[in-house]
């Protein structure tokens, strides 16, 4: 009798013990994971590579996404890392390619960066086009645009009627179709390349 009791007790201890350890380890791992995730999602992390700091980061500083009338700023991850969890993880996994090229030194001089700029830009434009410019829309929303306050040229083009959204059709264009090179310099020969890749009409 006592043996069975003991065994039952042992089993109980074991289950409780492993559950507790599991929870603790889980918290640590999950917390650590999220912490790393948050850490790699800061501007400071992005510009810890001189490739970013010396090129695209400097260029960003000339633009309206860096400083403007109202003092709102978009930093690297706001545009280049999706906000939603699943998409974010996918992007982070894909970023291992960037780590590889960092190690290989693919763009470690300004000249190499320039040579590679068009390839990188096209790849980013493709990503944005494929997601219907999801990251732009984290901040910019058609529904929140006051067309009265835009330049007539812009208002005309942002008008939902032009975009056919009122008829329930999907708009034929997305932000990046027109707004290329708004945060970084345009690569040489971008227009022809973008047209060829179907990213510009």
């Amino acid at each position, binding site marked *: 009798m006592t043996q069975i009791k003991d065994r039952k007790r042992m089993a109980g201890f074991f289950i409780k013990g492993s559950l507790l350890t599991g929870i603790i380890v889980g918290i640590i791992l999950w917390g650590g994971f999220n912490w790393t995730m948050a850490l790699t999602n800061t501007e400071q992390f992005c510009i810890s590579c001189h490739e970013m700091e010396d090129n695209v980061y400097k260029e960003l500083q000339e*633009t*309206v996404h860096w400083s403007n009338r109202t003092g709102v700023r978009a930093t690297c991850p706001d545009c280049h890392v999706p906000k939603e969890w699943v998409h974010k993880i996918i992007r982070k996994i894909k970023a291992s390619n960037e780590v590889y090229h960092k190690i290989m030194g693919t763009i470690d001089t300004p000249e190499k960066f*320039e040579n590679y700029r068009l390839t990188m830009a096209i790849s980013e434009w493709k990503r944005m086009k494929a997601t219907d410019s999801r990251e732009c829309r984290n901040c910019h929303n058609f529904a929140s645009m006051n067309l009265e306050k835009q*330049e*007539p*040229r812009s208002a005309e083009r942002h008008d939902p009627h032009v975009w056919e959204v009122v008829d329930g059709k999907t708009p034929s264009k997305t932000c990046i179709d027109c707004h290329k*090179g*708004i945060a970084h*310099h*345009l*690569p*040489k020969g*971008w*227009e022809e390349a973008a047209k060829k890749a179907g990213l510009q*009409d």
Partner: protein
Amino acid sequence: MKKPLLITIVGALMLLQAPLVIGEETVTISVKDLKALKSLCASIDGAKTTAAAPISSSAPAAVVSASPDIGKAVKVASLRGFHELDKDAKPVEKKKQFKISGGIEKNWTLQPPSIPHSIEKDRITLKGNTCMKCHSKANHEKEKAPQAAESHYKTRDGKKLEKLSPRRYFCVQCHTPQADAKPLVENIF
């Protein structure tokens, strides 16, 4: 210099509404006034008044010493006015570039038209020229912008080119945005 003569000159300057610093014996007058003064001096026989500063259309003001003891320190106005050389320059007033729909009227026939919009976001570099996003042959219709004129697609011998002529690559060499700013230098063109 005789007293009555000095009084005449000072009186004339007052009529011309030139600023006057009698205490330091220094008179500041504009280029226009200086010309008037010179002719005045010429008409008064025996006048010893000297025009100390060169007459230059680019100088905002010239300084004439009307002091009886010439040789005393004379303040000289530069393009910075009487601003001390070793002091920081006055900060430039910030001006927003104009946006004028319909364009800006030309002052003469062959004038490169002024740019009726802001060009803050545009970049003209070795890599590219963002003006051509809107003003190129391919894009101007879609962008509802005027196409860069035919002359921009010709060599200096009048040969037609497919692409923008290198002579016309640096748009802002000829076309300029406009702002509500007073000219730094008088312009009588």
